[in-house]
């Protein structure tokens, strides 16, 4: 088939259960593969790595001219901004979350994460069939991010609806009409932003030990986010802080149930778990693609990509590239030197990676001993629509 339809075929819903053969086709056709709509698709490890570190590659959708943007795009959150503005906002957002200002924050969550995990496991007792997503992989990270940021779990019906709308519009796909999707997302952003800012306002001068309290009570005015920045940043941290982790945990259970020998091995050697999480991030990552736009004409492996053109980096394909990874299609928890793209790379390297690692280790560590006789009810399971943030919608298993 023509390589200029690869992105369309990858994002087609029927490819969701197994996009990996298409990634192999992409690497074969590559490294730089032009798409019918004028954009480019790249799936080889070294080219992706170079572009993720290239300061001429913009993450800001407003710099795109081909394919042209259908409507006015508002200022995005720092995930899709460039330096120096990205650096300023990310640094401010990092102050209550990680080093150098809050080096102990994530580590201090370990006890709480173990406790939540324990409660969820306890609730599975005596059940024959469970849905890994709804009964475990979703409740854990959403509870953690609610406590970390200071969002009441009771408001789930609100933020789940907003999250779904915003995540849907963040997907990648060629040539589809995204007007309706974007309108819904814009609406959800406004409502969710107001909601989160309001929560923060309630904590002004009455901090409750969470990140919204820290943001609103920052004593140095120069380091305090504006209301708009607080809204955008809080939405980003809240959504990115749980959505991808759900998929990471679910993909972990799915991968291990498909490979009973590896499940057995991890049951016998739990010390391999941290490495197994890294391998999972390579083998079945929650984030499959990111978009970048060159700010100047750039040369990639002999192809000149014009300024302003959409370039989709297939991170999940790069992590399966046989050049850096020996037997890339094998899940190997002892793989050495595993420098995968599971958290991206370069200046946008995942902000929440330390938290995601702890949550995935805790979740899989608690589940693995319970999966002795478990089997998949449905393989492949039903997937979410999203091609970029790929993962099962449900994962029914028999215990």
């Amino acid at each position, binding site marked *: 088939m023509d390589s200029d339809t690869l992105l369309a075929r990858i994002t087609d819903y029927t490819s969701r259960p197994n996009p990996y053969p298409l990634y192999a086709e992409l690497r074969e056709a590559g490294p730089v593969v032009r798409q019918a709509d004028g954009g480019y698709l790249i799936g080889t490890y070294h080219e992706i*790595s*170079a572009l993720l*570190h*290239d*300061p*001429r590659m*913009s993450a*800001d959708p407003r710099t795109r001219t081909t394919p042209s943007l259908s409507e006015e795009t508002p200022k995005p959150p720092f995930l899709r901004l*460039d*330096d*120096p503005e990205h*650096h300023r906002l990310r640094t401010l957002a990092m102050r209550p979350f990680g080093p150098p200002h809050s080096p102990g924050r994530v580590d201090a969550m370990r006890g709480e994460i173990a406790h939540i995990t324990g409660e969820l496991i306890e609730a599975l007792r005596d059940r024959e069939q469970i849905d890994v997503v709804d009964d475990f992989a979703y409740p854990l990270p959403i509870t953690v991010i609610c406590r970390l940021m200071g969002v009441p779990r009771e408001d789930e019906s609100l933020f789940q609806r907003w999250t779904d709308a915003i995540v849907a519009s963040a997907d990648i796909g060629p040539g589809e009409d995204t007007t309706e999707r974007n309108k819904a997302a814009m609406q959800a952003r406004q409502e969710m932003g107001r909601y989160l800012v309001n929560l923060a306002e309630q904590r002004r001068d009455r901090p409750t030990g969470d990140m919204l309290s820290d943001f609103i009570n920052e004593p140095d005015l120069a380091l305090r986010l504006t209301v708009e920045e607080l809204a955008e940043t809080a939405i980003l941290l809240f959504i990115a802080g749980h959505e991808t982790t759900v998929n990471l945990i679910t993909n972990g259970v799915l991968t291990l149930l498909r490979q009973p020998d590896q499940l057995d091995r991890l049951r016998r050697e739990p010390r391999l778990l941290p490495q197994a999480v890294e391998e999972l991030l390579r083998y079945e990552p929650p984030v499959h693609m990111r978009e970048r736009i*060159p*700010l*100047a004409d*750039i040369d990639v492996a002999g192809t000149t990509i014009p*300024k302003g053109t959409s370039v989709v980096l297939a991170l999940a394909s790069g992590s399966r590239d046989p050049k850096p990874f020996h037997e890339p299609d094998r899940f190997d928890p002892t793989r050495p030197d595993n420098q995968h793209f599971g958290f991206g790379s*370069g*200046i946008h*390297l995942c902000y929440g990676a330390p938290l995601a690692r702890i949550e995935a280790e805790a979740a899989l560590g608690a589940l693995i001993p319970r999966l002795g006789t478990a089997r998949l009810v449905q393989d492949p399971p039903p997937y979410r629509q999203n091609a970029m943030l790929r993962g099962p919608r449900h994962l029914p298993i028999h215990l």
Partner: protein
Amino acid sequence: MPGDDLKDGRIVIVGASLAGLRGAEALREEGFTGSLTVVGDEPYPPYDRPPLSKQVLLGQAPADTTGLPMRRDPDADWRLGVRATGVDPLGKRVVLDDGESLPFDRLLITTGTRARPWPNPEEAALDGVFTLRTRDDAGGLAKRLAAGPERVLVIGGGFTGSEIASACRERGLEVTVAERGPAPLVGALGGTLSKLAAVMQRNHGVDLRCGVTVTALRGDGNGRFTGADLSDGGRIDADVCVVALGAVRNVEWLAESGLAAGPRGIACDAGCRAFNMYGIVTDDVFVAGDVSRFPHPLFGYQMLSLEHWGNAVAQAEVAAHNMVSPGPLRRPHLTLPTFWSTQFGLNIKSVGVPTFSDHVVIAQGSLEARRLAMVYGYQGRVTAAVTVDMAKSLDYYRHLIEAAAPFPPPPGAADRAIAADIAIPSDVPDPKGLSHGPTVALTGYLPDRRLTVVQPTG
């Protein structure tokens, strides 16, 4: 005689620090099953040195807690607290100061460097005068700093001197830095960044004196350091003095060995095999780490001399591989020089050889923002980059250096500096006029680039 492919037999490593340990581990990783002896003149197992001028001086970690983790047990006979005094190349033996001699089939030399001492031994012996290289140095200095001295005098504004000054300020101690050159770090980073370094020091309350030399250290008659005289006629009253005048290669013990060992290190080929004094390569003596000098194709095959943590690891691994592999399977050591420093709240990282340059541009960020990427060029190609609080950009420039990309680098960076196209002279001074070394230096054949000073000390 063993063949090229040495899997058993006897290997001796002289030097029990980072390169020695990584070399020993790598030999076992490569399948070497013979006898392995590691000789080290310090009484301690291998330990890490970068924290000695940072966390240890800040009191965050005791000096005896920086032991290097082992990747695997190298199953070696550790001869610690013993000094090697010579090599008999014909008899293939290393001679030790306790009279013993160790026979070898292959020898790996990783003796590194030591701190350049204060030239006047009597003044150097004053109580309160330190150098900083070893765990004992750091432990003693940290104790003095914790006791709250009135003022610390640091002689030399290189990386070590600057990090010591930074630690002093972080502890709230008054500190004077005396540097013979025009600014701190100028020998390693050139003119522009050295000006930023000077501003950072002064903003953090360092009493920075450039263009002066310390002419004498004074004592109180009871052998205690009390201050120093400066070449501009000034005097500094201080109760602690740290001499940070750069490093001296530990090569004296090889004087009779016939190896090409001199003040710039031991010359070796790209495969880490030592040259003898006639320029003939040996096949049983290998060199790695700070004590080596090796040719690099990206820098005109000039001999590179590095004082870098990462180089010690990478070169030891290549040396170990080549020591036990037959000729055609041997690998060259081609790693790009990389180093980092933390001082005055800034993270400084470097890739390539900044001193191998004629011009620089600020490609990203700005001096005002204290966050930037500076790119170094030599005759129209990129040869180095230094980032200040912008470490994630370094890989991009590493790639440009490896690809010998044109200088200045292509435009288009999102956070591109206003003057990104305007190259200014890199302004790397002759180290003869400095109190500090470049930490990465070309020591090779170009006569106009004299980047090593020999200062006789005895």
